[in-house]
């Protein structure tokens, strides 16, 4: 049976469309777009006050499978993605075994096809180096052929400048970005918190901002030299942003992403040693948070991505220094983005859709989603003004390690449609 979406505000950066229209979807395709379409023999969903946008893609997600299924699985991670308003995720390669072999890529694809009946596209990110050890290049061409959309040793940086140079040169041949967790390990080793007054008074070992800034500056020179594609994962400092801004002005193939927690929280939050505020890169200062917002506004930051990093309750239920880095983000990202960015006039609705949908696909050179007749329906539907309170107990993710429990947010995903499947988050 066809699905009729009535009275939604259709917002599509690809076609430039922004108007209230009805949509008929049949067998996963957009059949008709028009005004006051007849509802005979159709399932009708009234989307008055809701926005229909191209499907959101979170390009930085840890699905944990294979190897760490006690934290998350491809099934629970995809469910969390759908519940958070995402029709696609990129999964990072720090699994066990890591994504340094095409067989692991195929395993993930097979699992993703049955998770949520294939609703959520899972785009694997291959490892840059074997075992993510930073020494020998992984088989990048084979990984790309199997379906890797980019390469990263995320969790660890590609530290060796020669390896980074070769990776940029090699991946450029098939237009895949190197996604760098930029952090000079000789400066950040053993650190758990931003260097500054908070870490100084808490007596915590530090990850200086410099560790990120130096690595990004080096990588940008390597990108300029090689002409490769370079994407800075979870950018966190004002100076890194400025470096990226200058590189972009030169027209280099440089892009970057920011996580919601880096544009919402500061290192003040770690004062109670709550491990749900421990992430890498660490939370920085108010100035950095403001810089992230200006970077989003002026386009220096292309993408909002979550760095969704599930950990089990017991893994986080330890001393701050002993806890693993990371928080989950899939089910709070959309709410945080709308609350902090739309609600505080940092970005327009249109710009937020670009950062969550259009731009991540552009960074990864994936085909653009178009909302027009004959196209596959890959859609995220959201309510930009609905108010809700974050309750981790309701999460679809297997893990609950979020610092945002109890947050009152404005803006909420309503449903997602993709690959012939639909998932409605709030009943309508």
């Amino acid at each position, binding site marked *: 049976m066809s699905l009729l979406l009535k009275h939604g505000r259709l917002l599509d950066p690809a076609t430039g469309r922004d108007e209230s229209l009805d949509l008929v979807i049949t067998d996963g395709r957009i059949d008709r777009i028009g005004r006051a379409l007849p509802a005979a023999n159709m399932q009708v969903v009234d989307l008055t006050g809701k926005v229909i946008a191209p499907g959101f893609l979170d390009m930085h997600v840890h699905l944990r499978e294979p190897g760490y299924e006690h934290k998350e699985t491809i099934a629970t991670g995809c469910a969390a993605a759908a519940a958070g308003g995402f029709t696609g995720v990129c999964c990072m390669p720090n699994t066990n075994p890591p994504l340094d072999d095409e067989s692991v890529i195929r395993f993930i694809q097979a699992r993703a096809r049955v998770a949520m009946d294939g609703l959520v596209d899972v785009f694997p990110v291959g490892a840059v180096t074997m075992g993510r050890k930073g020494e020998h290049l992984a088989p990048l061409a084979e990984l790309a052929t199997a379906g890797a959309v980019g390469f990263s040793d995320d969790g660890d940086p590609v530290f060796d400048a020669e390896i980074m140079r070769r990776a940029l040169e090699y991946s450029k041949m098939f237009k895949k970005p190197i996604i760098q967790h930029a952090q000079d390990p000789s400066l950040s080793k053993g650190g758990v918190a931003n*260097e*500054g*007054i908070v*870490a*100084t*008074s*808490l*007596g*915590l*070992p*530090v990850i*200086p901002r410099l560790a990120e800034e130096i690595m990004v500056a080096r990588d940008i020179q390597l990108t300029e030299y090689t002409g490769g594609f370079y994407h800075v994962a979870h950018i966190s400092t004002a100076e890194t942003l400025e470096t990226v801004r200058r590189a972009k002005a030169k027209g280099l193939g440089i892009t970057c992403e920011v996580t919601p927690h880096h544009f919402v929280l500061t290192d003040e939050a770690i004062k*109670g*040693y709550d491990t749900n505020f421990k992430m890498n890169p660490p939370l920085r200062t108010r100035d950095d948070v403001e810089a992230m917002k200006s970077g989003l506004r002026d386009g220096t930051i292309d993408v909002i991505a979550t760095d969704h990093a599930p950990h089990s309750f*017991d893994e986080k*239920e*330890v*001393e*701050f*220094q*002993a806890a693993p880095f990371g928080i989950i983000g899939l089910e709070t990202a959309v709410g945080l983005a709308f609350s902090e960015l739309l609600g505080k006039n940092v970005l327009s609705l249109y710009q937020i859709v670009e950062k969550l949908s259009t731009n991540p696909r552009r960074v990864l050179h994936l085909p653009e989603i178009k909302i027009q007749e004959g196209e596959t329906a890959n859609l995220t539907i959201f309510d930009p003004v609905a108010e809700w309170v974050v309750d981790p107990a309701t999460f679809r993710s297997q893990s609950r390690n979020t610092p945002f429990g109890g947050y009152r947010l404005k803006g909420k995903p309503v449903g997602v449609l993709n690959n012939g499947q639909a998932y409605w988050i709030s009943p309508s």
Partner: protein
Amino acid sequence: MPLQSRHLLGLDGMTRDDLQLILDTAVSFREVLDRPIKKVPPLQGKTVANMFFENSTRTRLSFELAERRLSADVLGFAATGSSVSKGETLKDTARNIEAMKVDMVVMRHSASGAPHYLSRVIEANVINAGDGSHEHPTQALLDMYTIREKLGRLQGLHVCIVGDIAHSRVARSNIFGLITMGARVTVCGPATMIPRDIEKLGVSVCHHIDEVLPSVDVLNVLRIQLERDAGRLFPSIREYHNYYGITRKRLEKAGRTITVLHPGPINRDVEISADVADGEHSVILQQVLNGVAIRMAVLYLLSTQN
């Protein structure tokens, strides 16, 4: 008047009234230590567990003695040879000990914030006996007690803490406590040992000890971690001693009477020369004695909170 918290996690944020209360309470316990029978009954029937996840001799003995002087039952625990080496978490270890009906836990741990975490997962009163590079509140309290005993006040004194400020829990607790009590604090050490933004805590920073000595009333000399730091935070022991070591010659050149503290254990002729450690400037052994009184005061005040 009770303390505002039922735990002693650190001196950061503690009010002047609370600090004053502990210091004043310690005076009467200090007097007990001079009696022929050095035991009083306030903690009779209470059980205190000393959980030391890091090596310590004087702090552990000092707490244990304070507990026994107050007539508490005392449980000892050292990380080596315990279930911790079998991979048990801090939470499980603490909860198991608490299940034996323990009223108070004294903990030394290598991770900053470990006692804060512990206070959220167990019911007993938690006393921080040193957490990572964060705080060592009873040490700072006994330092302040000793300074007050010797000089009659804390308000308006100039205290200089010398050494590896970045990795020192003694330094942090002293900074928080002394500033609240109205003292002026300078931290002195090589730039590699001064943590970023420390001046935002209200202290002055100095890298040349001889420049600050002429205005200093009290020097608190920190222990240098020889094994860990030589070659990374400073080039050599010899160089450290020459530029930051507290010697009699250096003190005499300052032209005023300076009281010298050291939290121990001392490295003779590294951060402090033997003739200073054993001489008339030093109050190191008074610190050790006062430490028992301070810990008695803290245990007593917290035990009345439940």
